[in-house]
Each structure stands twice: as C-alpha cells, then as structure tokens.
C-alpha cells in the first residue's frame, strides 16, 4: 500500500475517530492552584538571584577564629589563689591533647581547654606561671594590665588573634626591648631533640649578631642578656615574661618541625633595665609547643621589638 492509498483508506475511519479529531480542542487550562506555587517559586528564585551575590560580597561581621589556635593563659599567684585564664577558641580540625601539670589550673580551665581542643602543650612546672599571649599592640609604658578571670571565646579576624581582655585583675607590666636573630641550622650533636633555652650575658662578639641595633643600647641603663633557644623545631619566639619572686619566667613558643627534623638555634637579645638587677640565674624559660603555623607567624610578625613582662 502506498501513502496515497493509505490516505484514501483513512477516509473510511470510524466516524467517532474523525468526529473526535475535528471537535473543538479544549486547551488545557493551568489551574490557579498550580500557578500560585509556580509564581511564588519564581519570585523566590528572582529574589535569591538578586540578594545572593550581595551576600557573598558582604564581609561578615563575625568570623570564625583562626584555625588551630588555642591559647591558654593561666596566671597563678602565690598559693594558687588567683587563676586567670584567657582561652582563645577556634574551630580546630586536629585533635591534640593538652599536657599541663600546672596545679594552678582550675577545673574550669581544664574543661574549657579540653572543649576547645587546645593546641598548646605547656611544659610547665607546678607553681610556675605560664602565659602565652599575643600582644599585637604592646604598651609603651608601665600600665595596669587586665587579665581575664574566666574563659572567653574570642572572636577574631582570620589569622589575627587578638588579645582578649576582660574582667581585669590588677597587674603591672613593663616592656623589655628584645632583638631577634634569624634561626640558623646547627650540627645535630650540638643540640638535643628537646627545645631548650639558655641565658647568658651577651658578649661583645655576640652583640655583633645584631649589629648597630645592639650597639644603640645604653649599657649603663640595660643589662644585655642573650637567650639561645636550640632544638629540633622550625622556629621559636619569646612571647612574654612574668616576674615572680625575683625571678623572671619567659614564655617561649616554638613551632614544631613537621617534615625533617633539623636542629636550629635562635638567639634573642634581651635588654633588662639594670635596676631589676637580674642575673642569668634569675631567668627561667617556660617552653610551649605551638601547633598552627599561622598563629606562630602572628607571634613572630610582631615587630614591636619588645616583650611584655608582668610583675
């Protein structure tokens, strides 16, 4: 059968078929019940399209604290009557356990630090004062320094941890000029695996390490002490200090070597006012391990060339 015959044959189709095909077509009407959600969805899509780019460009007022930064500051006085803690919490992606034996750390501190997944390992002795604080704007004169009395979750800009200060406990502090020498690789047998800090009075030969900057110190006003930090780490920095019972405890933070441990040596020149009458025997180091490279570099980038000593 060819197409022409087929078409002629179709003329004999049942009347019902032909009648149905030639009846007026009732075009489907969109019920309003279906229209409303569709229109609403369109409006939402339009609004979202208009608002979302603006929201994306908007800088959030509150951001997450810097990653992998938890700082626990404990201040113990005499018989642990006072405990001051500042905790910088953040979203920590790694689980690190805290190792602290400080008797002065209260249960509250322990709970808070555990909850915040801290990344600092305090290697302190019982009864000593441990402080790790980032003073981005150090005081230029002796001031009353407020110390927090309760754990506070700090809200900071990314990679810029701020010093949380609230509920002040009256303390006095002073600034000690510090000069830093870049770390140098040393022979492995010259240093131990652990990070240690040694203090000694700066010799003229050592002072050449810092050049003119060291020469500018008035030797009659300052006692220059060289702090040599050595061990297997990437870098180390003196964060702050505390004077207690005629001794000065310096908090030193180091960044652990992650890949190939190589011994390094970092030297700092500390200029203590002569009136403090410090000898090297009066200086002690509290060395803390810092996880979080960004945080460490924040400490390191502080170019104030001074540290805060609380007393």
């Amino acid at each position: 059968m060819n197409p022409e015959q087929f078409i002629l044959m179709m003329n004999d189709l049942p009347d019902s078929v032909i009648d149905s095909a030639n009846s007026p077509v009732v075009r489907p009407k969109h019920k309003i019940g279906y229209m409303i959600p569709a229109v609403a969805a369109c409006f939402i899509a339009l609004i979202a399209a208009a608002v979302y780019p603006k929201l994306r460009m908007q800088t959030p007022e509150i951001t997450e604290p810097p990653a992998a930064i938890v700082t626990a500051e404990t201040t113990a006085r005499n018989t642990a009557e006072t405990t001051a803690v500042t905790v910088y919490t953040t979203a920590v992606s790694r689980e690190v356990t805290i190792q602290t034996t400080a008797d002065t750390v209260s249960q509250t501190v322990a709970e808070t630090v555990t909850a915040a997944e801290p990344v600092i390992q305090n290697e302190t002795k019982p009864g000593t004062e441990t402080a790790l604080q980032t003073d981005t704007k150090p005081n230029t004169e002796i001031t009353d320094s407020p110390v927090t009395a309760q754990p506070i979750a700090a809200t900071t800009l990314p990679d810029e941890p701020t010093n949380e200060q609230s509920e002040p406990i009256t303390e006095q502090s002073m600034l000690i000029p510090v000069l830093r020498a870049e770390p140098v690789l040393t022979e492995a047998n010259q240093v131990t695996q652990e990070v240690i800090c040694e203090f000694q009075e700066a010799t003229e030969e050592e002072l050449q390490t810092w050049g003119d900057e060291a020469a500018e110190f008035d030797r009659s006003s300052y006692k220059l002490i060289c702090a040599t930090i050595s061990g297997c780490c990437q870098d180390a920095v003196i964060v702050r200090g505390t004077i207690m019972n005629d001794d000065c405890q310096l908090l030193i933070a180091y960044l652990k070597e992650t890949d190939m441990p190589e011994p390094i040596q970092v030297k700092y020149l500390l200029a203590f006012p002569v009136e403090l009458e410090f000898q090297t025997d009066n200086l002690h180091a509290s060395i803390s391990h810092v996880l979080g490279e960004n945080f460490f570099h924040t400490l390191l980038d502080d170019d104030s060339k001074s540290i805060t000593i609380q007393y």
Partner: protein
Amino acid sequence: MSFLSIERQNAKAVIAIEDKRILLMLNNRDEQALTATAAKYGALCRSVALDILGNEQDAEECINDALLAIWNAIPPAQPENYRAYLLKILRNIALDRYKAKQRDKRGSGQYADALDELAEILPGTQNTEDTVEQREMLEAVSRFLETLPKTQSDLFVRRYWRFSSFEDLAHDYGMTVNHVRVTLTRLRKRLQKYLRKEGLL
C-alpha cells in the same frame, strides 16, 4: 461532575439536536438545511479544505461541492454522525481537486507533506487493488488509534486525515511546533511497528 464537563455535554447535545434537525430538513428537501449546515460547519469545512488545497478560492468551491453532494446524498443516506459524514465527503472532494491541481501544477497544501511523511513508513509504491487487504489495513489502523491517548490519536487524524499544518496543531493543542513534529514522528514509527506486527507491511 464539574461544570465544564456538564457544559460540554450540553454543547454536544445541542449539536446532536441541530444535526437531527438538519437531517430532517434535508429529508424534507428544505434548502434551509444547507444554509444551516454552512452556518454551523462552514468554518470547519473551510479549514479542512484549506489544509488540503492551500487555496482559499479552491476551498470555497470545495465546500459548495460538498454541500451539493450532501443535498444529493440525503436522502436516501441517513448518516448517524452528520458532521463526520459531511467532512468525509468534503475531504474526498478536496483530495480529488488536489489531484486535479497537481496534474495542472497549480497550488499546494499540506497534503503533499503528509504523503512524504507517510512514505517513510509505507515505502510500497504498488497500488493495492485488493479490497480485503485495504479493509484489514483500515481495521488495523483503527485499532492502533484506539490504543493511543486521545490527544495523540487526534493529532494523527488531524495530520493525515485532515492535513492540518504543524503550526495549526501546535496552536490548537497548546504544544510547540517541534513537539508536534516529534510526536507525529513517533506515532508514525509506532504505527509502522504495529502494522509489521500485524503482518500488513
């Protein structure tokens, strides 16, 4: 039952009554029957004729010829479905006129396009004179159309019985032209498969 369906049923009833009245007038040889037919089905007849012939003047002449054929056929014919009967007569006249036009090489319409489309599934060129085979084919096509949803069945008949254009079908059925094309292509292939299964191809 919705108001719309009741209204449609009433409309069908009115049409049925009117068709019966027209048939009665024809049987009584009342010329007003043709006037009533033209008034009621003139637009539809014009559309069908125009689809086939593609020419307004030819379509008008075709309608007049169809009305004359109706006048001559009734009585004695007593069709149950007056509209379908009228359209079949009109289509036959339009196709005859189209063939005559093709011989004279004037005018064109959807008919030629529909022939080309059907040639895809009916490649045979031989004329089948066997009325038995034609009747079997007609019954198979009727069964095939019954298996289709109403819209698809109507689309097929509108295209290959009435030769409506794709544009008109798209407008009438609320579809895009491309959708109509695709639907008809699929229907042709399904018909071909069906006829093969029936042993008619």
